[in-house]
């Protein structure tokens, strides 16, 4: 609900519903079976691209696809693997959306998330710790978009009126990483 409200303020109001649609479809596809982490990421990528509809489809789709490739052949994901995965996702989003930091987009969440995961990996932490650190940094990054003026995406049409609102894409990035951290803690 928060995503829908945030997107109503500076976008077209469909981000929350689109994300729900995409990930519900992805879960259904995954229940049909996916062997490796790479397969899971690929299935999610393809499903998001064909079901989300808004900009989040190609952006998150490309992110999951590049994340899958960034893992290489590793079957177990450690903290360094989490950093590689987030690095791949960020690279994909930057390539697809041609955005950089400070433009009030999801790049402002993924960039600090990568730095946080890398720091945990260097300190010898676990994959779950890396995901929690990344999700915390992503949420801080999302909150830091509030004073920014949007210069990419639909919100950029609002110019100065985009200032004072938290970016929906950066926010959903933080939710996604928090969900991944919670899931890895259970596993």
């Amino acid at each position, binding site marked *: 609900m928060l995503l829908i409200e945030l997107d109503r303020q500076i976008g*077209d109001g*469909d981000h929350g519903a*689109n994300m729900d649609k995409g990930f519900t479809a992805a879960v259904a596809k995954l229940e049909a079976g996916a062997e490796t982490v790479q397969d899971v990421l690929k299935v999610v990528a393809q499903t998001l*691209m*064909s*079901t*989300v*509809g*808004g*900009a989040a*489809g*190609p*952006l998150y*789709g*490309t992110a999951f696809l590049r994340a899958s490739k960034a893992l290489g052949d590793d079957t177990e994901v450690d903290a360094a693997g989490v950093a590689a995965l987030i690095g791949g996702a960020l690279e994909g989003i930057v390539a*697809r*959306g041609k955005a950089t930091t400070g433009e009030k987009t999801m790049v402002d969440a993924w960039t600090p998330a990568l730095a946080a995961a890398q720091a945990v990996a260097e300190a010898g932490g676990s994959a779950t710790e890396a995901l929690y650190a990344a999700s915390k940094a992503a949420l801080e990054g999302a909150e830091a978009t509030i004073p920014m003026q949007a210069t990419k*995406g*639909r919100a950029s049409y609002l110019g100065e009126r985009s200032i004072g609102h938290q970016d929906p894409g950066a926010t959903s990035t933080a939710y996604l990483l928090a969900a991944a951290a919670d899931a890895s803690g259970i596993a």
Partner: protein
Amino acid sequence: MRSVGLVIVSHSEKLAEGVVELTAQMARDVALRTAAGTDDGRIGTSFDKVNDAVTELREAGHDVVILTDLGSATMTVEAVLDFLDDDEREHIVFAEGPLVEGAVAAGVAAQVGGDLASVAQAARARELFA
């Protein structure tokens, strides 16, 4: 030389159908396809719809010029193109330009037998905004 077909990618089915209607007036023999809305008919764009429209035109022997309405449609098209082989990619141009004027200009260029490069150039409609 292959004839060139157009794919109109829009968030709205109505918008895409309107663009095709308008373009067809001056391009009656040109293959025009829409890829608009999500798979379940909401506002948005669909990877599968774009891919299907392009594939359909390619299988009918056309080269393809793609036009889009807004930024996220552009990203969907670029994602589709990333999945194609280089050989196939050569027959498809994504032309960023104004959707309505670009489609009409490209339709006319295709109607008079223009090749892929000249139809794509017309779709970008640069001369209209110079």
